[in-house]
């Protein structure tokens, strides 16, 4: 294993009224695609902005390409592509003007890719950027972030304003990039189906901390919903119960992460009328981030 591309250790970041990052530990190994999940206000954007050095932190340690974000060299900065949640592109410029402006900052710039994407995504080239739709601006932000063939992509809800076809096209672009250049990616999103397609690892965030970090496959395989008589599903039966509801008729509905032996135990409960179901990422999200 090589050193992680991004490493955050015990990071604190205060915003009015609370710690947006509250002793956060997070790291991303090279070549991995990590999905960052959490409810609004959990600290996802703050995490990404602090990792990039766009915001200072009160305490803790951040290393990106082995450097502290605030003192990063231009050479390392050029290895990063970033799509912010809100696109603050140069509204008075046309698309070619804006792209030419950014091109000047980077030693590497993939004109062929930029042209292909602006064409494929039908970005209007002649009008000022301020006149583009929200979806077009978001696509443009993605093009800008990909144009210098970054090794590390940081995407803060990159597809929130895109329609399903646009999202699928973007995912395909991302997949091709991870194949061709082994791009490392971290992206926050609320669109769980996208995450399910491309993320190898998921990190759940709550109140400024990462509360769960797992390969997606493992998470999906381990998490089960068990529904049956509460007497057959006593509290403490499983090590890691995420949620439990018992209705008035005594039927328990629990969500738990099961170890291998616990999985065998759970399937043996069928005889006692316990239903054992797979859990979609959406349910998992709701329970894990509560």
């Amino acid at each position, binding site marked *: 294993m090589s050193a992680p591309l991004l490493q955050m250790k015990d990071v604190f970041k205060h915003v009015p009224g609370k710690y947006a990052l509250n002793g956060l530990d997070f790291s991303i190994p090279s070549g991995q695609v990590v999905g960052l999940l959490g409810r609004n206000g959990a600290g996802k954007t703050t995490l990404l902005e602090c990792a990039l050095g766009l915001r200072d932190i009160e305490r803790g340690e951040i290393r990106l390409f082995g450097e502290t974000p605030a003192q990063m060299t231009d050479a390392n900065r050029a290895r990063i592509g970033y799509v912010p949640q809100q696109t603050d592109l140069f509204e008075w410029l046309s698309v070619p003007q804006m792209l030419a402006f950014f091109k000047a900052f980077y030693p590497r710039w993939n004109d062929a890719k930029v042209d292909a994407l602006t064409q494929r995504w039908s970005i209007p080239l002649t009008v000022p950027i301020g006149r583009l739709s929200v979806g077009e601006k978001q696509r443009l932000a993605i093009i800008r972030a990909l144009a210098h063939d970054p090794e590390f992509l940081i995407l803060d809800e990159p597809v929130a304003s895109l329609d399903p076809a646009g999202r699928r096209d973007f995912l395909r672009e991302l997949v091709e990039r991870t194949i061709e250049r082994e791009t490392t990616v971290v992206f926050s999103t609320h669109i769980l189906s996208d995450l399910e397609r*491309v993320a190898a690892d998921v990190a759940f965030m709550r109140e400024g901390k990462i509360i769960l970090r797992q390969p997606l496959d493992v998470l999906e395989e381990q998490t089960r919903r068990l529904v049956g008589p509460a007497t057959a599903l006593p509290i403490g039966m499983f090590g890691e119960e995420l949620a439990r509801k018992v209705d008035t008729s005594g039927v328990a509905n629990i969500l738990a992460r099961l170890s291998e032996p616990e999985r065998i135990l759970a399937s043996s409960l069928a005889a006692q009328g316990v239903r054992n179901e797979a859990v*979609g990422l959406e349910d998992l999200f709701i329970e894990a981030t509560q």
Partner: protein
Amino acid sequence: MTSKPIPLATALFTVSTGAGEPIYRQLVEQIRRLVAGGQLAAGDELPSVREVASALAINPMTVSKAYSLLEAAGLLERRRGVGMAVAAQHTRAQAKSERIELLRPSLERAAAEAAQLEIDSAAAVQLFDRILKGKK
């Protein structure tokens, strides 16, 4: 070497999200069914990891994982310079008695749902029969 064209990834596989079933497992099961049913025979090549990942917009590691598991299970074999192909021992479709077992998980799910809906077995079987025959 086979001269049969390699099928398109989108013609072989469909991926569904939201059900809590890992995508690699969906691919594994789909390939198992295609081989069991004889649509994929010994020597038939599979689309490359890259093609599948890009066509379905899924992480390439997911596709590699599915292929590797099927290789370990002896269903696929890695061909030098070619990629993955259906292993030689699968010359013929499996016996019907074995193939029908692959339907079991789906039917067990359907049976559980029928029980919840309090639909008796005769009515459920009749519906399944109609569906199989392509009627409404």
